[in-house]
């Protein structure tokens, strides 16, 4: 019998009775062939590898990360709560010492879900990784977390949620936004005034191969992680960089994904996108699981794998090499933000968000207090085609006395003003998450 070097937990929840629509890429059969492959390989018989049932996330779990408008129930279904609960379970079994590592193979995905949620965008409603991370912090006192997003699409939702959080290092490597949904993820997106350089984007050119991805991991991601020294490393494991993916243009392979995970050595992986459900997912997932468990994966290969076809164009290699200095600069020596306010002053950001799946248009004004002492009081005013003007207030973890006081003041005056349909509050100091 094969023995895993790392005790490994798998949370496999394929949601065989849930789809966005019958022919949508995010449909019932998405993980069917992955399950077939894992079963046929005898993965669940590997000594040290155990399958777990997901938790079901609670409304509080969601409200710890998101401002849901008008409320959690209106923007989620049971499938979302189970998917997020799968990520929570993955974290719990690692923290409780039941396993060394875990992988939540759950759907629907979450990394396009932003702080403010009015509906579904990019196949996502709520952000599984963010919900998991805030659970870890609330229940286990974890502080510093690194999220490495290897989905082909820029994880604009995760970036948005962690934008102002100096203790979450968010690194996204993705197909260049100039060529793919959602269009963001340029390297000059580097985080808010209190968390500058903690958002790292590595936009890779179309047709990047294993060589380019692994170079990015070795030369950009790992040096940054080594410096950041996170307590937990999370892989936001999208699988649509695969050469056979129908909605992207990259040339990454199952071997590449496995090698990436071996190098990154994440504590927890959470499935994101990936829609080549027959040609890629069965092999990529197998590769990731074996690599995380510390089991030989050298024989894992797609049936139509052709090394010659997947050789990287030298121009791409050159481009990525040049990218290295830029990306390292963002973390180690971030350029100053334009119009940076003084300490104690508020910096605002206006955003228009389009929910492609649900056809919702949202307008937001975000405010963050530039704070010397803490991550800064955060608030967000929002309205959309489905929701009247509403407000979200977040008092950050370890907030300073002044930010805490300002937060309470803001809440009271907002209530008094009567102009908001819903007010959502995240108070990380008191660990209270509620709507009024």
């Amino acid at each position: 019998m094969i023995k895993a070097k790392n005790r490994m937990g798998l949370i496999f929840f394929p949601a065989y009775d849930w789809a966005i629509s019958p022919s949508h890429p995010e449909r019932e059969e998405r993980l069917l062939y992955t399950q077939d492959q894992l079963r046929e390989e005898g993965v669940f018989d590997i000594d040290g590898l155990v399958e777990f049932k997901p938790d079901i996330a609670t409304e509080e779990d969601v409200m710890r990360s998101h401002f849901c408008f008008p409320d959690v129930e209106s923007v989620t279904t049971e499938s979302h709560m189970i998917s997020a609960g799968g990520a929570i379970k993955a974290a719990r079994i690692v923290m409780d010492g039941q396993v060394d590592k875990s992988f939540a193979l759950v759907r629907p995905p979450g990394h396009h879900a932003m702080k403010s949620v009015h509906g579904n965008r990019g196949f996502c409603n709520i952000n599984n990784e963010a919900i998991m991370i805030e659970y870890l912090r609330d229940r286990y006192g974890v502080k510093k977390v690194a999220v490495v997003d290897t989905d082909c699409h820029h994880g604009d939702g995760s970036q948005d949620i962690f934008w102002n959080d100096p203790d979450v290092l968010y690194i996204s490597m993705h197909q260049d936004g100039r060529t793919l949904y959602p269009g963001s993820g340029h390297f000059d997106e580097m985080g808010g005034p209190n968390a500058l350089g903690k958002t790292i984007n590595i936009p890779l050119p179309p047709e990047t191969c294993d060589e380019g991805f692994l170079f990015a991991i070795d030369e950009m991601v790992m040096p940054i992680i080594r410096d950041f020294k996170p307590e937990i490393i999370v892989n936001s494991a999208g699988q649509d960089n695969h050469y056979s993916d129908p909605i992207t243009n990259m040339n990454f392979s199952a071997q590449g994904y496995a090698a990436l995970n071996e190098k990154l050595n994440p504590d927890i992986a959470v499935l994101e996108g990936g829609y080549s459900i027959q040609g890629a997912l069965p092999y990529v997932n197998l590769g990731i699981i074996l690599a995380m468990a510390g089991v030989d994966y050298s024989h894992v290969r797609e049936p139509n794998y052709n090394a010659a076809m997947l050789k990287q164009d030298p121009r791409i290699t050159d481009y990525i090499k040049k990218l290295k200095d830029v990306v390292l600069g963002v973390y180690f020596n971030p350029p100053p933000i334009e119009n940076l306010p003084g300490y104690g002053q508020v910096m605002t950001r206006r955003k228009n968000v389009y929910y492609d799946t649900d056809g919702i248009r949202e307008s937001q004004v975000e405010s963050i207090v530039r704070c010397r002492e803490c991550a800064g009081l955060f608030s967000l005013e929002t309205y959309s085609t489905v929701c009247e003007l509403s407000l979200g207030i977040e008092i950050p973890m370890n907030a300073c006395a002044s930010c805490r006081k300002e937060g309470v003041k803001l809440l009271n005056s907002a209530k008094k003003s009567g102009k908001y349909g819903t007010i959502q509050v995240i108070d990380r100091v008191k660990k209270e998450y509620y709507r009024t």
Partner: protein
Amino acid sequence: MAKTDLYLGLDVGGTHTDAVLVGETGLVSHYKAVTDHANLLRSVRGAIEEVARDADPSRIKRVNLSTTLSTNAIIENKLEDVCVIASSGPGIDPGNFRIGRFFYEVDGSIDHRGTEVKGLDQKALAKIAGEAEKKKIRAFAAVTKFSTRNPDQENAIARAFEKISDFTTFGHKLSGQLNFPRRVVTAYFNSAVWRLYNQFADAIEEGLRGLGIEAEVNILKADGGTMPVAVSRNIPVESILSGPAASVMGIVALCDITRDSVMLDIGGTTTDIALFADGVPLIEKDGISLQSSPTLVRSLKTRSIGVGGDSAIYVEGKSVSIGPDRKGPSMAAGGKEPALVDALNYRGIIEYLDVAASRRGITDFAKKKGIAAAKLADAAFEFAVGRIKQEVDAMLDEIRNRPVYTIHEMLEGKTIAPEVVYVMGGPARAFRESLENAFGAKVEIPKNFDVANAIGAALARTTIEIELFADTGKGTLLIPSIDVRRKIPSGYTLKDAERDAKKLLEEHLSAMGVQANADSEVIESSSFNMIDGYYSSGKDIRVKCQVKPGSFKRLT
């Protein structure tokens, strides 16, 4: 009076061989003898002869047999050389699954859809055939990855050895379950015990003829059901580890189980535990493991813990525990160290053999450990009950936490809450009150529990499970384990598949000569729309259908 039918059941266990003859009105005769492991056949024949001594052999309509023959052959490694030919394609290195002395990997590949990706290396097969012939190997196992989705390559491997083989196990005929490593192990074991098993079956059939018994003969399986002996000749591996199942089926035959329940078989060394949901014994999700090798052999969900009448008592500081080992017999039975039954004797809960010896033993042991004797005896008993309860709870927990794959099951999945605890085994009566308190459930102790295993074997009906896999895009339908493969129209639906699965299963059973069995039922069924690019490419339909374990007759 009309001649009524008789049913003969036989359980060859590790210690005892039990035989019963059951008639319309109940137990007719029973017989118990120590199993002769060196000559199982003698044990079996002797027991049949004894139990049927006073019966009219022509009335015996059915002989059901649970035997350790295949299990022991595997455990003791008395196995025939088997040439295993495995073709795996990409994935985990098949070298990890080497088994036996003659394991060959052959190039070839089938993907999860059952599409042949790479043809078999015919040259390599011819070379292996040459070597096997030289080494005089006559038993083979053909196993390919995803053969349950496309058995062509396994069939081709078998053809390559046709001329020199006495027997070949086809991986896809063992089970519809996806699991290549288990398929390899199970196919190997099957071929390795095939000859020995068939010799045994020949001898049994001949012996029965000699006694004038013209009954249908069935072999008990680990899932609590039987298979006709003719069928078992090709899948002897299905006869392994049927012992615990015999006891469970005994409870089914002796009690009218309809609710969620627990079965405890408290013996000398161990307590065996089984669970029932709505009166049906639970089946292990995957196959049973033998010699720490997981197989595809379906089995009941049973667990065995080291709590029994002879479990040794330990004291560490103030804490008293028993088992999991035993140090010979109890002092009541002439042993040297106190065991659980001695504690029960001491407290007057039972009166078993030499009560004075037990009292002496417990008193001395308690004095040595500086603890009051009554306290020691109570604590030992309490520990035993607690340990049993703990294990049952762990099994229930495991079921509650078993992964599910739909939102519906996640939210509506059935949980098991035992209402009755059925207890058998020597110390059963002594445990009644304590178990009632521990479980907060009714405790029932069936009569005749000392031969429940043989009764269970006698009255078990035939079980079978099949998996249908249909791909309307390719227009194919497969039921690998019963060798069904046919074309289907593109408009084939899940309803058609459910109907066909039941029909084909029943046809298969009647072809095996099984009559008057329980109804088949669909236990899993799903249909997925497959999409290739942006276009529908048909449906992926899967149906699992079974005849569940049960007794064809009750002795309540």
